[in-house]
């Protein structure tokens, strides 16, 4: 049903020449892996499908199609990524035909992988059940359990920007999007550092897959590759790794659309998203700002407000305590 709708619309667009190519997902030989694919002719449309494991954010390859009129399948986070890229001048709205999908959420390959030693197929009813087919039998799981973390915590399954929205009923807004962030925040300072060291610093071996996967990391020379001055070391030294992750997350403040590509790309399954999710939470609370909802709105760091909070500042604290 959803896959057919996708193929149908892609074929129509290609035939009508509205688009020169359509960016979507296709299956792979691997039972729980999907990959992006670019189809240029109506015939190739049959390759397309609704990817239960579409962990790659199509907005990343989309940037390579500069100049071509391209169609794209856009879930909530992909569409928001496109909005941010438009705001940052990396994409032109008129070059795109966005086919929006009210996203049912995608499954997490790592979670599926751990369910059985050998899996030959995964059947996803896109509602509430997933069947994992092993050589011996079919195991049923609640879909919620296998969903990717970001999809569980997704605040905008419905894409904010589209040319055409497939009629499909996807997920509801997550009632408790910042649950995991809260868990870490509730730890003591000491525990938080230990969590950061254990979960992130000790496991990351600086392969930069997260950076390559992220649609919004498009700098020609990333700060980490800068040599004059090279202030972030290339070694696996804890502090250098910490600096890399902190500045990477900071560079996504007010931009990250929580599409989870970084976490999916990370070979070490490092919970990278928590850093950007924390910043998303703070931006929402302090500046009631959310990324990628309206191409006309200003970005977080290129705007300010008279009464932005400043109680975090030392002078405010000293003034409050009557010291100055």
């Amino acid at each position, binding site marked *: 049903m959803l896959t057919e709708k996708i193929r149908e619309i892609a074929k129509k667009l290609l035939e009508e020449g509205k688009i020169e190519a359509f960016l979507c997902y296709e299956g792979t030989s691997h039972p729980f892996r999907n990959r992006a694919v670019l189809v240029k002719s109506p015939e190739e449309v049959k390759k397309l499908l609704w990817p239960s494991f579409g962990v790659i954010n199509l907005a990343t390859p989309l940037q390579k199609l500069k100049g071509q009129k391209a169609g794209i399948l856009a879930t909530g986070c992909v569409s928001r990524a496109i909005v941010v890229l438009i705001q940052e001048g990396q994409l032109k709205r008129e070059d795109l035909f966005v086919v929006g999908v009210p996203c049912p959420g995608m499954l997490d390959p790592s979670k599926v992988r751990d369910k059985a030693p050998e899996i030959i197929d995964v059947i996803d009813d896109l509602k509430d059940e997933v069947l994992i087919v092993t050589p011996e039998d079919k195991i049923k799981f609640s879909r919620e359990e296998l969903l990717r973390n970001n999809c569980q915590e997704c605040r905008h399954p419905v894409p904010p920007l589209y040319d055409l929205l497939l009629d499909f009923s996807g997920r509801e807004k997550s009632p408790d999007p910042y649950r995991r962030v809260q868990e870490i925040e509730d730890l003591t300072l000491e525990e938080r*550092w230990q969590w950061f060291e254990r979960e992130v610093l000790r496991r990351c071996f600086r392969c930069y897959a997260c950076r390559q996967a992220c649609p919004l990391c498009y700098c020609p020379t990333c700060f980490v590759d800068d040599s004059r001055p090279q202030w972030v070391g290339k070694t696996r030294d804890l502090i250098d790794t910490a600096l890399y992750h902190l500045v990477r997350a900071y560079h996504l403040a007010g931009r990250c659309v929580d599409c989870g590509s970084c976490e999916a790309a990370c070979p070490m399954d490092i919970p990278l998203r928590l850093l950007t999710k924390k910043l998303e939470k703070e931006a929402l609370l302090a500046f009631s700002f959310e990324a990628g909802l309206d191409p006309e709105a200003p970005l977080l760091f290129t705007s300010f407000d008279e009464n932005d909070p400043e109680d975090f500042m030392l*002078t405010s604290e000293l003034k409050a305590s009557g010291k100055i």
Partner: protein
Amino acid sequence: MSWEPRIIAFLCNWCSYAGADLAGVSRLRYPPTIRIVRVPCSSRVSPAMILDALKSGADGVLVSGCHPGDCHYLTGNLFARRRFFMLKKLLEFVGLEPERVQFAWVSASEGDVFAKVVSELTEKIKLLGPNTRFRKILGGKI
């Protein structure tokens, strides 16, 4: 010799640096734990500068600029305020003691405020002790 905290202070040239000068002209006293780096505006201070200072061994980092509305470059400090807010939240989230990285507004006529800020900050960091967590020691720990 008792450990003395080392604080790097990025002061905006038009207000806070002038405030520090005024503290001098008014012969106020504050502990010699601070090393001032003059920058044109508080908005010139990037996270790289702050984090690098911590990495290089600073026990505390202070960034101080003009009060909102007084910025010589009009809105520099207003943009900077959001950046500092987000950076501070992030650092707290990963477990860096919040007292180590501080932001302040000190105007050109607030010599006394500047002296007080430095003394208070030094006291706070003395309680925390040296910055072992974020300091990079060559041949550091893996």
